[in-house]
């Protein structure tokens, strides 16, 4: 056979591949010589190589043929040729999953495992572990035990067991199911591993440490002990050192150990190790620690700085990548390395150059930006998408730092947008441009123009719809809205359904906002009504009819500001409505609101990778509460749950009983849910109730006790309170809370309670109800339209002086958190160097009444605030003004 190969090679030249024209069936045919006697090791070896080569190339072997070849191969164990034997082990490992009855080689392998030949032991154990599954564990247990008892083989077993494919499950099974073996064996393994960890063989040391950690990782005390031991005694293997550093930093992270801990000292001491691998691991561990101060970072940064001038590309890469990470949080700590980073800008490895430049962009001054951007544009086409995204992220961070540079950046980004690139890359650019537009109003028109150009030829539906949405929002408010119409309508003609539908919505917004464009928009809309897609037609018809009414309020409600209800909630309510035949029309106000209104396009550039998973419509926290409360009969008839607050702690952290309260607001009631935990193991609490004493206007209707509160098992009790109907002071209330219960002492060990108990009580901290508890945030993308829609029927205005507040920023922050309303039109951001500001807030008051607040702020000595409130309900306006006062 070999002869044939060589001839073929000759024909196609010496550079050809002797395995190129392999046929699976021919090779399997050849494998028959495995059965010949005597065995010809060289030929058999060659055939085994071919089989492994074919498997490696992805050739598919059927179960029957694989099993046949496997069984033939087992005969080769009769030969004593070393290489052949080793290839048999490899074949076993490769075929373990495709052949049947692989366990027949168990005895051959165990023989080699315990035999005289040293070179066989390791590979034999590794092969054995690969074919071992739970069912045959019992069968080999004997050999494993033997190997453990026997000094030398056990040593090898320990070293090689972790290497095997299934060692984790093997260990797990030992520990979980074979109780009679487990305690003994695991203990012995730990001892053996400990001994191996002080071995002279550096790889043995490394593997033993890995195994030790795996055996003990759930026992924090044992891990601490182990770390203490090895950090003191020191290790020989650099790999083991790296492992130890990782274990130490994980433990530091879990225990939130301070940086004065001996573990931190150990990691820092590794910065002086003589092996670069260890030094780098330590530096990287320090950099990745949360809350590291600049002083603690300094030694790590200086070793990384040294690495920057290493002749090894991998080391330079590692160093600059880690410095880049430091620069995100502590740019000043990296400034010392600026010179070294400058040298890396021209590195032939473009990944290193990119990382160096993006790091410099974070640490450098405004004056160097132009130069760096020029440098990077010279090779941006050569780098991979991953690094292009890094560049975009750096630019986006830079725009926030130096807003004046936006024109340079915008130019650069638009060039990048024209280049080839994958979705993640394009999305990063689009997000970056959008955030620039939002930060800098003067860049809006150029930015929109670039995006318009981009959607002319954009293959990513998600991006096209996103940009169309943005155009609809921003376009009508530009000086020349008409120029965007063409771009949008082109999409209606050329694109897929989703994009067409988005384009129709965008068009409608132009029509609603710009009266002079309305006639042309209506004509275009009419064309869209003949679209082949249902969704597009429906939208066009809907908008057409709304626009023809020419009513501001309608436009605001149905075109500018969409639904603010929670979609799963709406689905549930509609389903409920269809179940009960009724004359009443469906009331949107009964639908729970979306709990987390999307913050206004605050594009978080950073975690691009995290949103890779398709977003699941997981039930929100509020949906879960809604379900829980609906299950309690006393709370039926309260209507839909309007809002649930964050939990408020009513006790100190380390007390006998831990109580926290969640405030659930309904249209006319509030339910206070007290989550109580009993931390005393010698007590059982029963009939636990929290008694509340609200001031006059609130009325406690009902207490629902938690029947029983055993040690450390949380339980909930509830208090139902009725809210006054039209009392302007209803917004705020302070309530004293007392927990009352029956105590039964019990045996700490068994939990067996005494027969009788006694009543007791425990005073909790006061609970505050604030106006924010009555209001749900709602985002109005077009605040002006919403303001007109609500109208001035119940408008009220008052002026306040905020004496204790020193800056506008602080005032804005205070108002938002006090009222718990959603800032609109990005009015939560106060432009620099301004003495006055207008804050727009939108929300829904319990019962489903829209409420809008406009707060004009002026800075003099303190801050003066003029608050204007509009709502469809007079009481709501009064409640809000009363609470501010």
């Amino acid at each position, binding site marked *: 056979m*070999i*002869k044939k190969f*060589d*001839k073929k090679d000759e024909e196609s030249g*010496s*550079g050809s*591949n*002797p*395995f190129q024209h392999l046929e699976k069936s021919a090779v399997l045919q050849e494998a028959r010589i495995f059965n010949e006697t005597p065995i010809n090791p060289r*030929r058999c*070896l*060659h055939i*085994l*190589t071919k089989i*492994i080569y074919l498997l*490696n*190339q*992805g050739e598919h072997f059927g179960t029957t043929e694989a099993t046949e070849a496997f069984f033939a191969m087992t005969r080769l164990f009769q030969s004593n040729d070393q*290489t052949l034997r080793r290839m048999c082990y*490899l074949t076993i*490992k490769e075929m373990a999953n495709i052949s049947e009855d692989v366990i027949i080689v168990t005895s051959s392998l165990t023989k080699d495992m315990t035999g005289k030949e040293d*070179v066989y032991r*390791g590979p034999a154990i*590794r092969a054995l572990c690969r074919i071992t599954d739970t069912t045959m564990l019992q069968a080999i247990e004997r050999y494993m035990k033997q190997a453990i008892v026997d000094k030398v083989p056990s040593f090898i077993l320990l070293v090689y067991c*972790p*290497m095997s*494919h299934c060692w984790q499950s093997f260990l797990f099974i030992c520990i979980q199911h074979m109780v009679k073996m487990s305690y003994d064996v695991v203990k012995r393994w730990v001892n053996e591993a400990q001994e191996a960890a002080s071995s002279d063989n550096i*790889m043995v040391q*490394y593997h033993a440490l*890995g195994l030790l*950690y795996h055996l003990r*990782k759930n026992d924090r005390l044992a891990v601490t002990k182990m770390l203490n031991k090895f950090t003191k005694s020191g290790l020989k293997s650099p790999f083991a050192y*790296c*492992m130890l550093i*990782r274990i130490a*930093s*994980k433990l530091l*992270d879990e225990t939130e150990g301070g940086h004065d801990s001996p573990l931190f000292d150990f990691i820092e001491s590794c910065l002086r190790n003589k092996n670069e*691998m260890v030094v*780098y691991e330590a530096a990287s*561990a320090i950099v*990745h620690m949360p809350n590291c101060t600049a002083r603690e970072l300094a030694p790590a940064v200086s070793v990384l700085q040294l690495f920057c001038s290493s002749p*090894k590309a*991998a*080391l330079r*890469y*590692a160093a600059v*990548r880690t410095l880049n*990470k430091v620069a995100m949080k502590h740019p000043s700590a990296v400034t010392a390395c600026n010179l070294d980073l400058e040298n890396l800008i021209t590195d*032939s490895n473009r*990944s290193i150059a990119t990382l160096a430049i993006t790091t410099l962009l974070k640490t450098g001054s405004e004056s160097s930006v132009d130069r760096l951007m020029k440098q990077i544009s010279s090779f941006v086409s050569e780098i991979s998408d*991953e*690094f292009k*995204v*890094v560049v975009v*992220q750096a630019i986006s961070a830079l725009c926030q730092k130096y807003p004046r540079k936006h024109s340079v950046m915008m130019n650069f980004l638009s060039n990048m947008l024209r280049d080839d690139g994958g979705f*993640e890359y394009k999305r990063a650019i689009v997000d970056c441009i959008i955030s620039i537009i939002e930060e800098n109003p003067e860049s809006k028109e150029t930015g929109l123009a670039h995006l318009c150009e981009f959607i002319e030829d954009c293959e990513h539906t998600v991006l096209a719809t996103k940009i169309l949405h943005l155009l609809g929002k921003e376009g009508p408010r530009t000086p020349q809205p008409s120029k965007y119409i063409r771009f949008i309508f082109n999409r209606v003609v050329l694109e897929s359904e989703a994009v067409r539908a988005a384009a129709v919505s965008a068009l409608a917004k132009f029509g609603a906002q710009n009266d002079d464009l309305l006639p042309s928009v209506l004509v275009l809309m009419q064309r869209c009504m003949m679209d082949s897609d249902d969704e597009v037609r429906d939208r066009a018809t809907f908008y057409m009819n709304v626009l023809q009414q020419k009513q501001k309020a309608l436009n605001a409600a149905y075109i500018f500001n969409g639904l603010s209800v929670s979609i799963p909630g709406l689905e549930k309510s509609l389903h409920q409505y269809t179940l009960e035949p009724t004359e009443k029309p469906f009331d949107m106000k009964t639908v729970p609101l979306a709990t987390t209104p999307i913050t206004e396009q605050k594009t978080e550039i950073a975690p*691009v*990778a995290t949103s*890779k998973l398709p977003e699941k419509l997981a039930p929100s926290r509020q949906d879960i509460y809604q379900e829980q409360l609906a299950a309690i009969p006393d709370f039926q008839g309260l209507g839909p749950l309007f809002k649930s607050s964050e939990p408020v702690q009513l006790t100190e952290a380390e007390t006998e009983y831990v109580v926290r309260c969640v405030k659930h607001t309904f249209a006319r009631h509030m339910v206070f849910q007290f989550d109580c935990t009993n931390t005393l193991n010698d007590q059982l609490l029963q009939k636990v109730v929290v008694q509340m004493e609200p001031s006059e206007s609130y009325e406690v209707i009902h207490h629902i006790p938690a029947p029983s509160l055993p040690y450390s098992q949380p339980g909930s009790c509830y208090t139902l309170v009725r809210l006054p109907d039209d009392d302007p002071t209803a917004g705020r209330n302070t309530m004293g809370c007392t927990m009352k219960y029956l105590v039964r002492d019990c045996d700490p060990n068994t939990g067996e309670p005494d027969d009788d108990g006694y009543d007791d009580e425990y005073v909790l901290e006061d609970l505050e109800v604030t106006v924010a508890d009555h209001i749900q945030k709602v985002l109005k993308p077009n605040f002006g339209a919403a303001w007109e829609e609500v109208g001035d029927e119940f408008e009220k205005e008052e002026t306040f002086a905020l004496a204790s507040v020193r800056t506008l920023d602080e005032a804005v922050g205070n108002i938002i958190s006090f009222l718990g309303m959603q800032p609109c039109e990005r009015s939560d951001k106060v432009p620099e160097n301004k003495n006055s500001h207008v804050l727009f807030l939108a929300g829904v008051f319990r019962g489903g009444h829209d409420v809008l607040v406009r707060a004009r702020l002026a800075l003099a000595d303190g801050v003066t605030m003029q608050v204007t409130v509009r709502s469809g309900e007079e009481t709501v306006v009064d409640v809000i003004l009363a609470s501010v006062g």
Partner: protein
Amino acid sequence: MEINLNKKPEEPSLYTVKAVFILDNDGNRLLSKYYDPELYPSMKEQKNFERNVFNKTHKADNEIAFLEGMTIVYKGNIDLFFYVVGSAQENELMLMSVLNCLFDSLSQILRKNVERRCLLDNMEGVFLVVDEIIDGGVILESDPQQVLQKVSYRVRLIIYSQLPVISDLFESFQN
């Protein structure tokens, strides 16, 4: 895909290497092993990945690259390319030590003829070397001398492949 530097380091474990592969100068796979069953489970995905890596790396010998969220260290020699792949959080120097060990061991086994034809002629030795350096993603050995000792593989004579006549004779003797 971002270079996820913010992610907390993974659970400390011995599983360091995600994949290892050797390609020829056309980007064809000569040997490849994937150790993480979740990373490119199908042959098609694996070959796509190798193709992508090859296209991005074969022109310049840059030693290290970051592709598809993976750190890749590599080395080219004549008509061969050697790659070692690890996660984004992996210590680059650890991966480098694997790559160097792989290259040096093969270089010794092949008597410094690290080129495609010689490698293919001694494929069983190559399989055994890789198996001794990494098993299941765990670094078994990083010292080429130790690897050679464990493999104890005798190189097939170069003459054998270059002079078919002699090899034919050799063959007929054996039969």
